[in-house]
């Protein structure tokens, strides 16, 4: 097992624990926005899609990278916007 893999595993385990602690305190009323918010966070896959698009050299590579970019961009942009739209509604009605 390489040192790099061990470092990555450490990061993975700590991030799982951080996620557990951060999330378990959210009240049920915010669960749907939270699910949507968490859904946008895994849009970070966009960075991976950019990396593989940058390394692509074959027509198949370009085609698959294009689809991966489109999917990931939709996840990020749509996810954050729809979460913001939901949370916008939680503001108290101006009296």
């Amino acid at each position, binding site marked *: 097992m390489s040192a790099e893999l061990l470092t990555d595993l450490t990061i993975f385990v700590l991030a799982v624990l951080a996620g557990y602690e951060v999330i378990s305190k959210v009240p049920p009323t915010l669960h*749907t926005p939270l699910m*949507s918010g968490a859904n*946008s966070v895994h849009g*970070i896959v966009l960075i991976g899609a950019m*990396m593989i698009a940058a390394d692509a050299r074959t027509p198949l590579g370009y085609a698959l990278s294009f689809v991966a970019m489109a999917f990931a961009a939709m996840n990020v942009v*749509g996810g954050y916007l*729809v979460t913001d739209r*939901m949370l916008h509604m939680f503001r108290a009605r101006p009296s």
Partner: protein
Amino acid sequence: MSAAESVVRLIYIGAAACFVVGLHEMNSPATARRGNLLSAGGMAAAVLATMVLLATRGGVTSTGWIVLSAGAVAGAVPGMYAARAVRMTAMPQLVSVFNAVGGGAAALLAAVDLIGHRVAGVSGTTAVTGALDILIGTVTFTGSLVAAGKLQGWVPGRPLLYPGARAVFGTLAVLLAAGAVWLAADPASLAALAVLLGAAAVFGVLMVLPIGGADMPVVVSLLNACTGVAVAMAGFAIGNTVLIIAGALVGASGGILTKLMADAMNRSVPAVLAGGFGTGDSPNPVAGGASGTVRQTTAEDAAIQLGYAGKVIIVPGYGLAAAQAQHEIAELARFLESRAVEVSFAIHPVAGRMPGHMNVLLADANVPYPQLKDMDEINPEFARADVALVVGANDVTNPAARRPGNAVSGMPILDVDQARSIIVIKRSMGHGYAGIDNELYTDPKTAMLFADAKAAIGALLAALKTLAGHR
């Protein structure tokens, strides 16, 4: 490591911190929006930094840049449009679609990475995590699309069962495991990749099809967690820590949310996945053979009861969400308030189509946030309520849950039966999700108003205006 690369790595750490703090700020309605913006800011910084890194590093072909930007636009524009245009009642399926594309992207990423490095050879870590990423990402992609289809009504909401399902499923699971092991052992094999992709895609569809529409929120949440894990695996495969951190965060959060949802519905996650439960969204549920007599009422009688009450608690449920009657109920609440009636909404954790969905719907209809009370807060207040108005909620109000030995036993419920009188708006005596009679309906204090939620509330409001008027 070049200077640019070091800076980018530092920005990634900052982005990861933004995700954690952003999710933490979603704890409270007051900071939730800021939290989401912070998370979005972290994401934007990470994406920009990656862009700069790729530009300074060089080695990206011009076709590569075109593919990169065209793909981004092709995904961002429809995503933006859908997020802005979607009706709030259709939001659960949109979240499911966004989850699907995330999983699809994660799976493609590993597939492209494995194909691209086929000749040069890949490390054992990349092969194993890449295979896991493709497996999980593809299952969530097709599974989430089917879930979205069920929520939208394009795929029948009822559990779709077929003979020999168990055998087909078992064979597929074996094929899936074999494909993953094969690909991990021989990452250069296109055949292994094809077997794994195909088996995972079919598995995702067959996993969700037998699950009833009412269980879909639990499934969407579970698939959301799975996408997180797939993204973390993609991070291992391509050696990118920010993917590992963000993916693990989402995996943990989705996992907890799934369990909370299942608990609140008195279901276990394995039981949900076993499928075949519930009738889904059948428009004409089979009438339950209710024992005991049921008292019916009219919109006029109910209006008078509400109009002259001191304290009214509204209990909105799935029926209200399905009938899209959130604006009508909000108007009714405002009218009652104008008559100095104290109005609050009792929100069960799983009311609506997803946990918290009812809050979003009612907030969309401009119900002030302080009027929305969660279960623990509102339950002691029922005893002081003159009228509890139940709109399309069933199992979450069934007093039978307090006794052992039935399908809802132990489920957290709203203490609606403690109110001095109860009005239930419901289309029929049909059973809820648990498939048993609701003892609340045969309670002598309860009056039933059989109608569609939207029509019934409209009639109540009209009757209130003519009979009671503003006080």
